[in-house]
């Protein structure tokens, strides 16, 4: 029962990945105008146009182009950048590592903080501290990521001169320098991601708190702390695992903004530069990496909530 549902989800995930690849390819292929004539510009003659089209493969039908592109992607050949002609896999390599490192730090800091705060707020609902947490997190998820980043720069970099306002990296920093450069982007992302997670954790626990067996426990006089830690928390693990995976997926959009604002040399910055110069092969490759990560994380969230549901794990 459980394994079948897990396999089903994996199947859906693979299908989604395929559809995503179709969307990314079609969206970036239906350009107004012919790529070959854009490249050649004034110097185009019918012969050179045809030759370039053959070289680029744009004289083929769209389906053939798509299959060729998908095959290249699958075998790790991401194509060459239009600007400069460098191999895209070389461009991406180091950048991807930087972005993953930042995301790893953010996850390691924000997950424990969020679960603790969410649990704590759910244990004391209606108190003024709970209200502060509830309002603070609502305010945080209501504002754009760049608002948080701007305020962080204003307070930490401009006012107190604690941290640098950009995250330039040369590649040979000491650990201390590295941490200092990474601090601002990480602080911003932790605030953004935690707010969502705290709200969902709190709501998940309060949701379990309204079920009949909790009412029973309240009526028989179990202390509230024990109810939450022994009865409610274990039943809320499923939803919380789900929340964590979902929020790591939301990191994708946060990363785009934060890398831009702090000039952090990550994958998202590379992609934005690609969009601005309309370097389509580069945008396609980056988009596939981001969307693929997103789909996989959502898939993990789904599987997590199936596996942590005792009714599915032990079928009658």
């Amino acid at each position: 029962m459980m394994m079948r549902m897990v396999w089903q989800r994996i199947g859906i995930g693979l299908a989604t990945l395929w559809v995503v690849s179709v969307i990314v390819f079609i969206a970036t292929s239906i350009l107004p105008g012919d790529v070959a004539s854009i490249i050649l510009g004034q110097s185009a003659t019918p012969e050179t146009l045809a030759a370039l089209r053959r070289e680029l493969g744009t004289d083929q039908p769209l389906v053939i182009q798509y299959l060729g592109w998908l095959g290249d992607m699958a075998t790790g050949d991401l194509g060459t950048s239009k600007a400069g002609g460098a191999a895209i896999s070389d461009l991406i390599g180091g950048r991807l590592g930087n972005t993953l490192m930042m995301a790893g730090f953010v996850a390691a800091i924000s997950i424990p903080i969020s679960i603790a705060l969410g649990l704590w707020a759910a244990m004391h609902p209606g108190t003024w501290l709970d209200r502060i947490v509830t309002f603070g997190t609502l305010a945080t998820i209501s504002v754009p990521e760049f608002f948080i980043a701007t305020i962080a720069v204003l307070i930490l970099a401009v006012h107190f001169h604690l941290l640098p306002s950009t995250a330039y990296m040369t590649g040979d920093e000491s650990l201390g320098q590295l941490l200092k450069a990474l601090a601002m982007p990480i602080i911003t992302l932790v605030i953004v991601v935690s707010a969502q997670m705290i709200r969902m954790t709190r709501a998940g626990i309060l949701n379990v708190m309204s079920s009949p067996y909790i009412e029973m426990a309240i009526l028989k006089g179990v202390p509230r702390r024990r109810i939450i830690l022994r009865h409610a928390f274990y039943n809320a693990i499923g939803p919380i695992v789900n929340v964590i995976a979902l929020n790591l997926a939301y990191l994708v959009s946060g990363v785009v903004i934060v890398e831009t604002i702090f000039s952090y040399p990550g994958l998202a910055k590379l992609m934005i530069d690609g969009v601005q110069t309309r370097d389509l092969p580069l945008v396609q490759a980056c988009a596939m990496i981001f969307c693929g990560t997103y789909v996989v994380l959502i898939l993990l969230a789904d599987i997590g909530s199936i596996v942590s549901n005792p009714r599915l794990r032990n079928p009658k």
Partner: protein
Amino acid sequence: MAETVQVNKDKEEEVLAELDSFAELPDAPPKRKFRLSWVGWVASGVVAFWLIICLIGPSIAPFSEMDIEGDDSFLDAYTSEEGYGSFYLGTDYLGRDTFSRILWGARNTIGISLAATLLAYLMGITLGILAAVKGGWIDMGISRLNDAILALPTIMMGLIVVAALGTSITVLIGTAAVIYATSVFRIARALGLDIMVQDYVEAAQTRGEGIWWIIRAEVLPNAAMPLATDFGLRLVFVVLFVSSMSFLGLGVPPPAADWGSMVRENLAGLTYGSWAAIWPAFSIASFTIAVNLIVDDISAKSGGSLAKKMV
């Protein structure tokens, strides 16, 4: 003239009285009362303020959004040198008046977001109700496509479209509308499916009413209330999307004023102690937080959970 107005008024009162007497019937629907808390009232005031600025902002702004007025960039608000006192919030990186640009920007940021949200609702509701009412392969086809678009992070979708089509306000509105129509579609379809199996729809079908009559008279009025609450939330998401795209330099093209791009342009000023980037950021935040607070207030009033009462 005055008489006709009076007659109309009398008629109106008559109709209202009639409606009131219906309300007394035992099977009358429960009256919906909007009682906002004080937080809700303050938030409504903020939203109303920005909507009014949206309409009249450009006509009360002291300067045009594009004119370079100051001799210097990043002037303080309180520069007391002659003439500079008129820049209430100082100047931006090109020496344009920040206060005027915020007033102009309200129209761009909120106007574009409202247009995109309305368009998203138009598409989402039409397709959602169509899918729910027709079912079969129409439902299947639209739902699968919808799931695929929902599977992409919104900002990625925006980046891909802009990379292909370039930046313009039309592209921005269209992209935001398509992206957010997907979630409207889901809600509208679920509501439609729910309503289509109700007794009153069955009664109408038995009566021989046509499909359009059922959609207009039964489905839409019953789906209106939940969809209206969702509108606020969706609007916040669209504002965040639009201003994030502008912030990345891929939304409203310069020199038009827009809160997202104003933050981006003036970021460098932060280190000189200029608040030119902070004001537009605060403007976005005040609008989105206020809308969210209203939505929160309404949904908290409409259903209290047991946990709130027990613990």
